[in-house]
């Protein structure tokens, strides 16, 4: 074996540190550079390759009005309604108001929004919207196109924006409740890294990796939630995990995103059937013949109830059928995707496929002001990493919109803040975090298995349906797993040590899992994405947010009234 990495820690300095290079992080970097700030944009994956944005299949919701007359107010109202009373309307107002400008900016950067022959941008009608409002890039290419476009813009600002992939951030550094920067390590050689910044932006996305079946990248372990919580910031609405109802289940496919059936339903409708061939959404108060209109929380509920009643598909989901749609129509709508399905042995004119709910997005996250500032001074957050704008259930299509809009806002806000600050760095404040990434611990063979076990535990006990006994069981096991992994990472700093990376991930995932399960346990009602079998009804008294903070090793959960939007006269 080679000797441990003996290189001294690498210390970097910047005006603005952006953690996470998905849609929100890249947009934040561009906006901050636009104000003249120097930016260091880091990601544990490669820049613009990990995260959720790159995996978006289709819809980006925005009141452009290019299909039918539309208004900011209509989009705002749909967003608030989807959130089941818990949206922070100040944040939803920002997303819906500034959405059109963000989409036009991407258009000017040649993202390639699908257009009508007359040049109008096409908009699809997604569930929960009152009209066609979602722009997209064909075919199933919205995320890759947005990511590629933002990466190209980053390269045009190389004088101000430094990009660093393969860099894992493990802790923020704070003093006097202000963020001074961060500590982490380089994946390629294990070398400890410290970064001093005048302002720090968390744009690490959500927590879908906590679940066995999920639709997002490996790096979505809830990193930003743990970083923020440990630094003294607060989390909000952590009990609301969105399950995408019709994630692909069977037959096994390769090279296709599990949420790909969403665009198929937008364009072609399709029929969701139980084992008896019945379009069961009507049994749950939904209009079975009105097209693809059921919101995600309600569809997830209906599918899982059918499975529970013994009317599921063989693999444990529902059937999705496009057999009534002629092949020419399929090809017109999805072109090359039909060939990719054929390569997987799937002919939609001849067979139905099986779908089931899959962890997709997190409504909760870091609590921020309308200025995207956390409870820690000089620490901002953007995109899926923040909570509040989507309440108890996110409207289809709002995720990329909020990534772009909040990214832009937070980049500007952080640049304005940095302009008033000097770099303040404290070796003492960073010492514990630097010692952790430099530490040597006993090798262990169980670390990847523990990740798999946690994912199963969360799916089974803290998934779409919860009850008190299951949540307590989950919390107990989370506690013993935390004892199992201890305080020291296994092995020594070295190149791409995945057991060590998994250890740091588990440290994050166990804390974040605890916040989700704890908030789910204390919310004794059912609302949106949070469904309690022992409290099946919505309770008006629970029209409040839950806010979590960390004191030592103890979580504190308090309720807070839902903020109100005071519109300027």
């Amino acid at each position: 074996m080679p000797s441990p990495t003996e290189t001294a820690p690498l210390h970097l300095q910047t005006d603005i540190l952006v953690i996470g290079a998905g849609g929100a992080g890249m947009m934040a970097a561009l906006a901050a550079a636009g104000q003249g700030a120097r930016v260091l944009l880091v990601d544990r994956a490669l820049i613009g390759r990990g995260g959720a944005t790159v995996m978006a299949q289709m819809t980006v919701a925005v009141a452009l009005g290019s299909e039918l007359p539309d208004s900011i107010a209509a989009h705002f109202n749909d967003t608030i309604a989807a959130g089941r009373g818990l949206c922070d309307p100040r944040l939803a107002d920002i997303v819906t108001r500034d959405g059109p400008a963000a989409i036009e900016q991407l258009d000017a950067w040649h993202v390639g929004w699908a257009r009508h022959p007359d040049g109008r941008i096409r908009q699809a009608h997604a569930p929960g919207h009152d009209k066609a409002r979602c722009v997209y890039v064909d075919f199933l290419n919205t995320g890759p196109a947005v990511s590629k476009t933002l990466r190209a813009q980053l390269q045009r600002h190389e004088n101000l924006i430094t990009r660093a992939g393969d860099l894992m951030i493990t802790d923020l550094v704070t003093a006097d409740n202000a963020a001074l920067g961060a500590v982490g390590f380089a994946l390629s050689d294990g070398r400890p890294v410290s970064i001093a910044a005048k302002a720090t932006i968390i744009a690490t996305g959500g927590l879908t990796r906590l679940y066995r079946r999920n639709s997002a990248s490996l790096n979505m372990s809830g990193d930003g939630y743990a970083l923020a919580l440990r630094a003294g910031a607060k989390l909000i609405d952590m009990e609301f995990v969105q399950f995408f109802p019709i994630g692909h289940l069977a037959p096994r496919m390769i090279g296709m995103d599990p949420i790909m059936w969403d665009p198929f339903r937008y364009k072609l409708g399709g029929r969701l059937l139980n084992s008896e061939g019945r379009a069961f959404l009507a049994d749950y108060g939904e209009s079975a013949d009105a097209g693809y209109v059921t919101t995600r929380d309600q569809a997830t509920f209906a599918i899982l109830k059918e499975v529970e009643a013994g009317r599921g598909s063989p693999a444990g989901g529902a059937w999705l059928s496009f057999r009534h749609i002629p092949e020419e129509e399929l090809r017109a709508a999805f072109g090359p995707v039909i060939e990719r399905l054929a390569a997987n042995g799937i002919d939609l004119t001849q067979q139905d496929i099986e779908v089931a709910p899959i962890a997709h997005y997190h409504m909760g996250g870091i609590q921020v002001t309308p200025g995207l500032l956390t409870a820690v001074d000089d620490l901002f957050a953007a995109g899926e990493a923040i909570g509040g704008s989507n309440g108890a259930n996110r409207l289809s299509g709002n995720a990329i919109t909020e990534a772009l809009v909040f990214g832009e806002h937070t980049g500007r806000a952080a640049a304005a803040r940095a302009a008033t600050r000097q770099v303040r760095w404290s070796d003492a404040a960073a010492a514990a975090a630097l010692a952790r990434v430099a530490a040597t611990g006993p090798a262990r063979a169980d670390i990847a298995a523990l990740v798999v076990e946690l994912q199963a535990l969360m799916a089974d006990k803290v998934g779409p349906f919860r009850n008190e006994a299951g949540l307590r069981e989950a919390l107990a096991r989370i506690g013993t797993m935390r004892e199992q992994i201890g305080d020291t990472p296994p092995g020594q700093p070295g190149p791409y040590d995945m057991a060590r990376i998994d250890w740091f991930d588990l440290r994050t995932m166990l804390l974040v899992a605890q916040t989700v399960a704890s908030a789910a346990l204390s919310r004794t009602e059912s609302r949106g994405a949070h469904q309690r079998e022992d409290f099946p009804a919505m309770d008006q008294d629970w029209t409040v947010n839950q806010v979590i903070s960390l004191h030592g090793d103890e979580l504190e959960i308090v309720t807070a009234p839902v903020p109100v939007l005071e519109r300027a006269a």
Partner: protein
Amino acid sequence: MTRPVAILLIERALPGQTPRTERFEVPFDPGQSVLDGVRLIRATADPGLAIRYSCINANACKECMLRVDGKVVYACMRRLEPREMRVQPLANKALIRDLVTEIAPPDERIG
């Protein structure tokens, strides 16, 4: 009935070492990818086995490029088969560890 297995012969090394080949058997289910096989090995046998991937199944991140039976493929796109398959890192990129190579653009690396 004996369940069919896929046998992955994985080339492992740190920079500067002579690569060694390790043999892993994983239960074979039709439709699985080579990446599925490697992830299963990590969870059940050796969490230190290094492979770079991000999107898992969507062919979106383009991070899991390596060689299977000498041919450059994405691990998430190459199907597992119930036979011996030789898995190696990219030959034309600097080795970081095992199946992980330096594929980040030069201007996206620190230090």
